C-alpha cells in the first residue's frame, strides 16, 4: 500500500490577485443584484408606463413618429422611470449609512467606493434592463399592430442613458445623505427636474434647451421620420453625452469623501467627476449649435451625411378618377381614403392642360423660417404631378391629442381643400379673390357646400385666425355664379384661363 509520503507533493499556489478581483467583484455584484430593492418597485413602474406612456400612444395613428411622440419625444418614458429609479437608488446608496455600517465596511479589504459602485451597478442593471424590456415589449406590440416605419432606436438609447443617469444621481444623494428621506427627496428632485425640463423645453425650439429630455421640438414634429428618411442621431448623441456626463459626475462625487478609499482612488474619483462635467458641458455646447433641417435637428460636429440618404421603398398605388395615386407602404392603410378623397376633385379637372397625370407621396418637411408649415399638397412639373405630404395632414382614425378621432369625411375635406389650393395656385396663402372663387366652386363641385367651406378652412389652418364666417361677399357670389355654369362651359373656361388664374392675373370680373 502506497503511503501518502510517496505521493508527489502538490503545491497549492495562492490565486493571483488579477484573477480574484474580477471573480470577487462578480460575486459581490450577484449578491447586490439579489439583495436589491429595485425589483420590488419595477411592477409599479411597469404599471405606470402602461398607463402614462403606452396607453396614450395607442390613441394615435399607427406610425412610429406619432406613436412615440408622447413617450419618447416628450420624454414620458423617462418621467415614468427616472424619479422612481432615483428614489430607489438613493435608498440603496444610503443603506450602509442608515444601518450604521459605514465604519465597518470602510475597514474591509475592498475600497468603499468600489463596493458602492457595485451596489449602484446592480441597481442600474435592474432599472435599465427593465426599461429595455418594457420598451422592447411595447415595440413588439406596435410591430404586431402593423405600425409603419422604423422604431426610433436612438431615442431608446437616450432613455436607457437617462435611467442610468437618474440611478447615479439618486445613488449619490443616498451616499451623501444616509437618511430615510433620501429616497423621497431624490425622487422628488427627479420629478421637479423633469417638470422644469418641460417648462423650459416646450418654449425653446432651438439652442441649449434642445438637450433637455422632454423637448420634442425639431425631432418628433413630423410623421415621416423613420419612413422616408432615417431618424437623425445628432441630437440623441448629444443627449446621451449629456446624460452620460451627469451619471459619470454623480458616481465620481460618491468617491470624493475621505472614507471612500485611498488618496489615489479619491484623486481618480475627482478626475472622473471633472470628466463627467466636461462631457455634459460639451453636450450642451453641441446642442446649442443644432439647426433645424427638413428631416430634423442637425448638429454639424456630429452629423453624418449618410443619415441624409432617403429610405428606399416600393410604393403602393391605387387610382382616383383614372389618375395613379402612389403612397409609401407605411401609409398603405390610408390608400383607399386618399383615392376616395381625391377622386371628385380629379374628376372635375380631368383633361385640363394643368391637371395632374399622377399623384405621389412626398416626405413631410419640418417648417423652416417663419412662413408656417409647408404646403401639404403641391402641383408642379411637366407633366404636372401632384405631390402630397400626408404626414402634414390629420389622417383618418385615432388622432392622439385632437379633440376626437379624425373622420374620413374630415380627412377628405382637408385633402380636397389642399388640392384646390394647389390647383388654383393659391398655395399656403389665401390667394387672390379669383383664385378663392374658383377654389370655392371646385370644392362645391366636389361635394363641400359653400356654407361648410369657411369652417373647413378654419380647421385646416395652423395657428390662430379669424373665426369662420358666413359664405357671403363678392368671392362667394362669383363662386356661386361659376358653380351654376354648365360643367362643359366651366371646363372650357378653366382650360383657357388656368395659366392666368394661377399667375394671379384674373379678377372676379373675369370669371364667367
Amino acid at each position, binding site marked *: 500500500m502506497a503511503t501518502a509520503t510517496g505521493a508527489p507533493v502538490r503545491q497549492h499556489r495562492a490565486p493571483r490577485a488579477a484573477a480574484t478581483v474580477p471573480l470577487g467583484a462578480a460575486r459581490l455584484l450577484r449578491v447586490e443584484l439579489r439583495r436589491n*430593492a429595485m425589483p420590488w418597485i419595477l411592477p409599479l413602474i411597469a404599471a405606470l408606463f402602461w398607463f402614462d406612456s403606452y396607453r396614450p400612444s395607442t390613441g394615435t395613428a399607427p406610425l412610429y413618429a406619432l406613436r412615440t411622440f408622447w413617450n419618447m419625444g416628450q420624454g414620458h418614458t423617462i418621467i415614468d422611470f427616472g424619479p422612481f429609479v432615483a428614489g430607489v437608488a438613493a435608498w440603496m446608496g444610503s443603506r450602509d449609512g442608515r444601518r450604521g455600517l459605514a465604519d465597518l465596511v470602510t475597514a474591509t479589504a475592498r475600497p468603499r467606493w468600489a463596493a458602492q459602485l457595485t451596489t449602484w451597478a446592480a441597481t442600474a442593471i435592474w432599472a435599465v434592463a427593465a426599461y429595455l424590456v418594457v420598451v422592447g415589449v411595447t415595440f413588439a406590440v406596435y410591430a404586431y399592430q402593423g405600425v409603419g416605419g422604423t422604431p426610433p432606436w436612438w431615442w431608446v438609447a437616450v432613455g436607457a442613458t437617462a435611467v442610468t443617469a437618474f440611478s447615479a444621481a439618486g445613488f449619490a444623494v443616498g451616499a451623501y445623505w444616509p437618511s430615510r428621506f433620501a429616497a*423621497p427627496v431624490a425622487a422628488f428632485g427627479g420629478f421637479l427636474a423633469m417638470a*422644469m425640463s418641460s417648462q423650459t423645453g416646450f418654449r425653446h425650439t432651438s439652442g441649449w434647451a434642445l438637450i433637455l429630455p422632454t423637448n420634442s421640438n425639431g425631432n418628433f414634429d413630423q410623421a415621416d421620420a423613420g419612413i422616408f428618411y432615417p431618424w437623425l442621431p445628432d441630437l440623441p448623441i448629444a443627449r446621451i453625452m449629456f446624460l452620460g456626463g451627469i451619471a459619470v459626475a454623480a458616481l465620481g462625487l460618491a468617491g470624493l469623501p475621505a472614507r471612500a478609499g485611498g488618496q489615489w482612488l479619491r484623486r481618480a474619483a475627482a478626475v472622473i467627476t471633472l470628466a463627467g462635467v466636461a462631457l455634459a458641458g460639451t453636450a450642451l455646447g453641441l446642442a446649442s449649435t443644432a439647426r433645424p433641417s427638413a428631416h430634423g435637428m442637425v448638429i454639424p460636429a456630429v452629423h453624418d451625411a449618410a443619415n441624409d440618404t432617403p429610405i428606399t421603398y416600393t410604393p403602393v398605388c391605387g387610382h382616383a378618377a383614372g389618375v395613379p395615386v402612389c403612397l409609401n407602404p407605411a401609409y398603405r392603410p390610408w390608400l383607399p381614403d386618399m383615392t376616395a378623397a381625391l377622386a371628385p376633385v380629379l374628376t372635375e379637372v380631368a383633361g385640363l392642360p394643368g391637371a395632374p397625370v399622377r399623384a405621389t407621396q412626398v416626405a413631410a418637411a419640418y417648417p423652416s423660417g417663419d412662413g408656417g408649415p409647408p404646403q401639404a399638397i403641391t402641383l408642379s412639373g411637366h407633366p404636372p404631378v401632384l405631390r402630397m405630404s400626408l404626414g402634414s395632414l390629420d389622417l383618418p382614425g385615432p388622432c392622439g391629442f385632437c379633440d376626437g378621432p379624425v373622420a374620413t369625411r374630415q380627412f377628405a375635406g382637408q385633402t380636397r381643400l389642399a388640392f384646390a389650393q394647389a390647383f388654383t395656385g393659391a398655395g399656403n396663402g389665401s390667394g387672390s379673390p379669383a383664385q378663392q372663387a374658383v377654389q370655392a366652386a371646385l370644392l362645391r363641385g366636389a361635394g363641400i357646400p359653400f356654407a361648410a367651406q369657411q369652417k373647413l378652412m378654419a380647421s385646416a389652418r395652423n395657428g390662430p385666425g379669424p373665426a369662420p364666417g358666413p359664405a357671403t361677399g363678392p368671392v362667394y357670389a362669383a363662386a356661386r355664379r361659376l358653380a351654376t355654369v354648365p360643367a362643359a362651359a366651366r371646363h372650357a373656361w378653366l382650360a383657357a384661363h388656368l395659366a392666368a388664374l394661377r399667375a394671379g392675373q384674373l379678377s372676379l370680373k373675369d370669371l364667367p
Partner: protein
Amino acid sequence: MTAAGLHRPAPGSVPPAAATTRRNLAAAGWQLARLYLISRRVPMALALLAGLGVLLWTALRWRWNIAGGAAARQFIPLTIQTGAAAVIAVTTYRPFGEPERVAGRWLPWLRLATAVALTAIAFGALAAGAAAGGMPGGTLALLRNLAGMAGIGLLAAVVLGGAFGWTGPMAYLLITEGALAHRSATPWVWPTRAPHDRGGAICACLVIVAGLVLITVRGPREPGREPGPAS
C-alpha cells in the same frame, strides 16, 4: 414568598399623591411622544415641509409654469404637494420592528396623531407658500389635493413599508399628469376637478380616512417581517 406579593405596597409605606401620579404620567407621556417623534425623524420632516413651502412660494412668485394651458400650470404646484405627501408617508417608517410593536400600546395613537399633525403642518407650510399668489385652484384645492395624496402615501406605507411610502404619491402624480393631459375627469383623480367639486372632495376624504385608519390600526409594513423592499 411569591411574585404575587410584589405589586403590593410595602406595609407602612405612604401611597403617592394623585397629583404626583398625574404629573409623572404627563412627563412619561411627553417623553414617549418626544422619543417617538425623534425616532420617526419628524424634526427633519418639518424642515423638509418648510423647504417645500418656500419652493412653492418661489415657483408661484417666479411663475414656473409649463406651457400648455391651465392644466399644465398645475403641474409644478402638484409636484410640490406630492413631495409633502411623500415626506409624511416616509415618517411612518419604523426601524425597530417587533420589540416596539410588542412594548408600545400607545403606538397606534402616536401614529395617528403624527400623521394628522404633519398633514396639518404641511398644509400650513404650503398655504403660506401659496401666499405668493397664482395658486391654481386656491387654498381649497390645496387642502383637498394634499389631504388625498397624504392618504395615498399612508396607504402605500401600509402596503410597501414606510420607507417606500413615497412611491404612492409619486405614482399618483403621474396618473394625475396623464389625466390632466388627456382631460380625464374621474373624481378619483381629484386634482383634475374644480376646487368646489363635491365628487373630488369626497374621494380625497375617503382616501385620507382610509389611510389614517389603516396606518393607525395596522401600521406600516415592517422591514424584515414580511418580504418587501423596505429591508
